[in-house]
């Protein structure tokens, strides 16, 4: 196989080819390494997807044995996953050059299944952002239109997969950080049930919401990568045993599948072109035999407000450890302890991170806790109840993933509230802890639109099956984005 063909293979196809002996894992790694390395070397003149790219294929794994399920297929990993001896900076200056002494559980799990670390991907600082413009290492560009954002916070992972610079990538999703960039970049991104993937070694943003998940070219790749990610980890007290195996999706029809469309997330605030593509996708679903009905999520419109209390509150505490004492940036020649703390954090954190630390600190303050954090948690409970009730009537819920297609770099940086609205459709599922996938469902003004499919906790197989059937029917072509 010549290099260009190799790069057209999905990750699952590449793994099969390596297992069959028709493709060398070393060659595949080198082909991707060369392309990722070129983008990395180009800096902000390229897509700026990466913060680190492997120099060489890891020698000891050069030709993974066929018995390893992921067969040595290269993997790009979001910067915030700790990788031993490899910079893990979470997009922040405060961790510039930080090389952890250990590797995140989910990365280790994938490595032992045969995945090989190709690169670390750029992201919004501490996963806070919807455009990847909050990275201390420069904005990432959308391969569909380089003047536009790739979404965030897993923007580097999404852009790298869309551009064909990596076969697949790991991201994390707190309020939409996998699904929204997947939508804006025309690829597949899935946030699994909260607790199904270990968070140990993921540099935390908001602990009760953060989940790792796959960003891939197609639904089968998402299922394959996810199947090697889930499982209980004794190092994460909130991790769960996934009750069954993640299967390779194969559904061609959706006969009898009940799909719910919530008016609350499919009306006001959603761009017309996005709604058109969404409705076209619903028509495909109907053709495949699905029953489509309205469903109510009465508290969903309050999800964004609750999210922007809970997530910053947890973040304000999670980010307290970046104090200059043990690792990362430390202000030089501090006059005393307070001076060291304030200057280190002043210099090390970007504006959005500071904004959220202040929001969260305020929300947890004595006298305000009940009015903000306590109330937001009650809203969260009601949103989870809404979904539980809805899933008594439908099997899956469909919405657009993001209210708009990819917007211009700099367009929303001065208006945090406009930026936060990107998460309008994805945050409810995050608060409820349920699985949701985004698949590309068409173009609007030449830019990809994402379709979100959500299901009850641990219904990943059902979600993936429906996504696969729709993907086959929609026949979205993402090759225009390839570099």
């Amino acid at each position, binding site marked *: 196989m010549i290099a260009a063909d190799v790069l057209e293979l999905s990750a699952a196809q590449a793994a099969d080819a390596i297992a069959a002996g028709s493709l060398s894992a070393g060659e595949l790694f080198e082909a991707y390494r060369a392309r990722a390395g070129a983008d990395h070397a180009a800096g902000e003149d390229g897509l700026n997807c990466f913060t680190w790219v492997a120099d060489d294929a890891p020698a000891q794994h050069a030709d993974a044995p066929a018995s390893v399920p992921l067969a040595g297929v290269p993997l790009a990993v979001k910067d*915030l*996953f*700790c990788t031993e001896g490899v910079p*893990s900076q*979470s997009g922040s200056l405060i*961790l510039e050059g*930080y090389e*952890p*002494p*250990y590797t*995140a559980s989910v990365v280790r799990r994938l490595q032992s299944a045969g995945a090989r670390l190709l690169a670390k991907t750029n992201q919004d600082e501490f996963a806070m952002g919807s455009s990847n413009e909050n990275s201390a290492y420069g904005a990432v560009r959308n391969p569909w239109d380089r003047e536009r954002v790739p979404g965030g916070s897993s923007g580097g992972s999404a852009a790298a997969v869309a551009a064909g610079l990596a076969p697949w990538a790991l991201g994390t999703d707190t309020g939409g950080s996998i699904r929204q960039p997947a939508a804006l970049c025309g690829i597949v991104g899935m946030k699994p049930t909260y607790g199904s993937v270990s*968070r*140990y*070694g*993921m*540099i*935390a943003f*908001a*602990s*009760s919401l953060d989940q790792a998940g796959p960003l891939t070219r197609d639904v089968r790749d998402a299922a394959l990568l996810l199947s090697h990610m889930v499982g209980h980890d*004794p*190092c*994460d*007290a*909130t991790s769960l045993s996934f009750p069954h195996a993640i299967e390779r999706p194969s559904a061609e029809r959706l006969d009898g599948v009940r799909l719910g469309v919530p008016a609350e997330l499919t009306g006001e605030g959603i761009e017309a072109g996005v709604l058109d593509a969404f409705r076209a996708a619903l028509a495909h679903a109907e053709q495949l035999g699905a029953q489509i009905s309205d469903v109510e999520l009465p508290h969903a419109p309050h999800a964004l407000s609750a999210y922007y209390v809970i997530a910053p*509150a*947890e973040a*304000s*505490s999670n*980010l*307290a*450890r*970046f*104090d200059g*004492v*043990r*690792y990362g940036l430390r202000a030089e020649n501090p006059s*005393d*302890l307070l001076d060291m*703390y304030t200057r280190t954090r002043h210099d090390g954190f970007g504006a959005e991170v500071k904004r959220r630390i202040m929001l969260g*600190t305020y929300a*947890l*303050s*004595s006298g305000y*806790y009940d009015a903000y*954090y306590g109330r937001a948690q009650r809203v969260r409970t009601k949103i989870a109840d809404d979904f539980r009730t809805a899933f008594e009537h439908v099997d899956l819920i469909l919405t657009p993933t993001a209210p708009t297609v990819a917007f211009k770099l700099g367009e929303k940086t001065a208006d945090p509230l406009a930026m936060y609205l990107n998460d309008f459709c994805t945050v409810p599922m995050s608060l409820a802890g349920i699985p949701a996938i985004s698949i590309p469902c068409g173009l609007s003004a030449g830019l990809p639109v994402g379709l979100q499919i959500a299901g009850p906790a641990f219904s990943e197989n059902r979600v993936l099956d429906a996504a696969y059937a729709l993907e086959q029917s929609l026949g979205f072509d993402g090759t225009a984005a390839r570099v």
Partner: protein
Amino acid sequence: MSESPRTPQPPAGGSIEDDVAFEPVIGLEIHVQLATATKMFCSCELSFGEPPNTRTCPVCLGLPGSLPVANARAIHLGLMIGLALGSELAPRSIFHRKNYFYPDLPKGYQISQYDEPLCRGGSLADVRIHRVHLEEDAAKLIHLGSSGRIHGSDASIVDFNRGGTPLAEIVTEPDVRSPEQASEWLKLLRTTLRQLGVSDVNMEEGSLRCDANISLRPAGTHELGVKTELKNMNSFRFIERGIRAEIARQEKILSAGGHVVQETLHFDPASGAITSLRSKEEAHDYRYFPEPDLLPVAIDQRMLADARAAMSELPVARAERLAREHGLSADSAQLLAFRGELGDYFEAALAAGGASSLAGDGVPAPPAQALANWVTGELLSRLEDGERAGGDLFSSRVSPRALAQLVGLVDAKRVSVGAARQVLDKLVAEGGEPQAIVDAEGLAAMDGGGEELAAIVAAAIDANADAAQRVRDGNAKAIGPIVGAVMRETKGRADGTEVARLIHEQLGT
């Protein structure tokens, strides 16, 4: 414990000249390092003086991405403490984050428990327990430079070995009324925790630490005054002195018509000075919220059963049993139980006395109350005050069996009390068998009513004619010098009651 904590203590305000006497109201917060193998939220072994930063991992160093996992053994020990204190054990309790910045706190928050602790309520002796909760210890800061504190130090270094050590924090209700009661009660708590095996409870090594909340109020009133918190006193002596000093300071303020300011204080045992660490205004807003990295602690029947099965008999229960089974007075039973080694020695002696008597050594088994009196009186005073001060009972030369035999001999009137004291002196100094010492030293009791004793009594009356006359004149107390003379002559072998009877018989009184 010579004063039981049940003894009411006089209010400390008695010395001031003002009419108003103040009553101290004291609550205690005790931090106990739990005797687990590993830390509270990671698998690092606990440190006992290892080189700095050798017992650490990503979790207890607070490295990015690391997560805590609660130590099941620490929860088990916490439940045992709750059972021992008669607390209500929460079926579901929650870990919270207590947020503040300090270099000894690597995550920028301490994982502790807040409004849903592991145990609530209960009591130990006369002090009610407010709550018991679990948390992690901070790391240890070492400040270089002359100040010895972080302000003004040239540099500070952090040893994270201690960071993450499991702690149980025991908070009392404000039921303590004096510095002495505080220290005596803490000793009882220490004995209780040691008996449970949940902690080393060593104040010098910091495995038991105490803070005190102190306020004063006019005696006889019920409203609580403004309290101050006295931090981290690390010995029973310092606790007593620190609380006394703070009571005196507050008394002085209140007597002068001033107001006590709510603040956190530090007692310097070297100078006796009390200095402010921070005022109420400077107090941290800890921004407590439920720790999202941990699930609630759910206590199931099996965990409860395991904790119950691990309980040993505790001092309060032991006192009740000793009184019930052996008919001991309440004071004796409490003294033996609250100082566990006294109780252990007593029970060993009682068993040995009974056994050797049954085995036919010819010495009758001692009565329990008499034996208890000898253990806590004659024997203890010889070991605490004499040349061998500091030695404990079991490592002394007096075996429990020997003491039991000695008390048995006294009870059978085969040795007088005075002679028995001499035998005990010998046992403490050299060890040995009581009967053998009695025989060798010729200390066997004289037969009551014998000719020999009557003659000695007659001689003593002649030698103390003045005293004899006063006895005849009706002054019964004047018999003392005559008895003393008889005892000297008999080397204490005579029975005191018999001697008195003979004196009165011969004097016709």
